[in-house]
């Protein structure tokens, strides 16, 4: 496993044999707020729309029952594109194939909090450290659960020119019977915000590019 950190200090991982790195977790509200402050392109009323759908929870206060509130949900794909561009020109949404490839590997890997410690120790910022540390106590069984690819959000991915969702949230957050390996979730409307749609970003690894860890 190779490790990088984006400019907000949140980790990205690449698995052996993968040509891309992916955010370890869906993008959080903390990262989104950094984007809001840096770019000044979105106002309070825009953010209020998102929070009405999925209220903010401080990284200091969240518990297992409220973990979804840490993450940025309800954004439209074009807004995610703006966020990705701010994060770095190389960042983009994963494709359906990339997301499923990652999910397949992680769903088979047993999660042991001790394995997470080197990642936590390497985090350059306090807030990602705090979130990872707290999430590690939620009793996840697999890395797919820890990374919230299972039991987290539905995540925007690209399918050719289209935007669809993949994921299987826990039913307390969004009732569903979705299997991310079989079902793509197609929103009824691309102009209505969806509270359980979040996203993680990926970027391609250049040949011979060193990892930070």
């Amino acid at each position, binding site marked *: 496993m190779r490790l990088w950190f984006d400019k907000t200090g949140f980790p990205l991982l690449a698995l052996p044999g993968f040509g891309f790195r992916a955010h370890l977790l869906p993008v959080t509200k*903390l990262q989104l*707020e*950094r984007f*809001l*402050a840096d770019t*000044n392109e*979105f*106002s*309070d*009323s825009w*953010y209020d729309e998102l*929070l009405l759908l999925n209220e*903010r929870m*401080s*990284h*200091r*206060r969240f518990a297992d029952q409220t973990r979804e509130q840490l993450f940025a949900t309800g954004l439209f794909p074009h807004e995610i594109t703006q966020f990705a561009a701010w994060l770095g020109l190389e960042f983009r949404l994963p494709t359906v194939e990339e997301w499923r490839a990652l999910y397949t590997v992680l769903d088979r890997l047993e999660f042991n909090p001790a394995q997470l410690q080197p990642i936590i120790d390497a985090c350059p910022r306090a*807030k990602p450290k705090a979130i990872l540390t707290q999430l590690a106590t939620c009793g996840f069984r697999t890395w797919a659960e820890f990374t919230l690819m299972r039991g987290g959000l539905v995540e925007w991915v690209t399918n050719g020119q289209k935007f669809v969702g993949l994921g299987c949230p826990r039913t307390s957050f969004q009732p569903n019977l979705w299997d991310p390996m079989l079902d793509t979730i197609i929103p009824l409307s691309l102009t209505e915000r969806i509270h359980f749609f979040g996203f993680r970003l990926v970027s391609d690894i250049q040949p011979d590019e060193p990892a930070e860890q």
Partner: protein
Amino acid sequence: MHPVLLHTILRLDKSAPVALVLDASESAAEHWPAIAQLGAELLDNLPPDSIHGVFFLGNSTNYPPTKLKTAQAEWFTENKARASLITPVFDVLVAVPDLRVVIIGNGRIYDLPDWDGEPILERCVFVDFGQPLTPDLPSAHRLSAPSAQAVLQLIRDPVSQVELGAPSAIPVWWDNLDYRPVETATGVILRAENARQLTVRVTWLTAEAAPPTAKLTLASGKTTSALPEMCAAPPEPEWIELSAEETTLLKSALARQQFKCLLCGATHDWDTVRCLETGSILGQLVYPCLDRIRATGFVVLRLANGPARARLHRASALQLSRDSVALKLGHKICIWRFDVNTGRWIRQSDSFDQYTPLSNDTYAIVV
């Protein structure tokens, strides 16, 4: 134990720094004139050296406080509709020790709970105009549409009085004339009230090894204390050489003989230090070199080989011997002596003799 000299410094220079954070977000837009007005009033009433800066929610830039009045419209345009986030500002301010922060705005600050429990939050005052900034933090200090004075009372509690002393200590020199010696039931303290500068170096004649503690009274009436630090002895003032005629005058005075005044030519008693025959309403010092430098208070004179010399002692107290001090209280000069039995300074007499000997060849006068 006999008293010894102790050199101390009490540092109470600066007011606690204050930063203003203004809200130009959507929810605050209609209140912007009031926000800017209150900000400007606060800046007018804070000591200039205490103002750390002016910030906007969602923006880590530190704007120059002196330009708020003239540039507020331009700053509002720059920050208009910024998201109501405090983290970009707190990330900059968190490292400033003892900083007070006044946030003036309207409507919820989204990320305030991320700072819950942090010391900086304890030092914040949140001012709104109807919609609280802190709905997620009910314990935060909140004011709604306050006056500038109401805000200032919360963030500033300046020192209004300092009292410095101990029963076993007496001051013999200090460098801040806002401090005056005051007699108390237990001896002599130095007191400053509503002074511009509160830092002071003091030399004590004391039987204690530790410096006397300072008692501070704040504008709110609260009291606290501060402990001075030990420091190096102050530099000694320069000696001024007396002329041959002044040296002769000094010798006559020390011999308790009348002398011929260098100013009026008349004969004066040996202990005359000020000639009233010169036409000046206050008279002039019989030592012209001291008069030229407008000497006041205690003067130490040294008569050794060669011309006599003089040195000013710019404090209202002068050590006379290892256990006695002359102290000017009001218009009187009193002699205080250390009592080894009680460990305290006792007022012994209310008269000071001119040309009091300090050592074999030095003498003190008061002018």
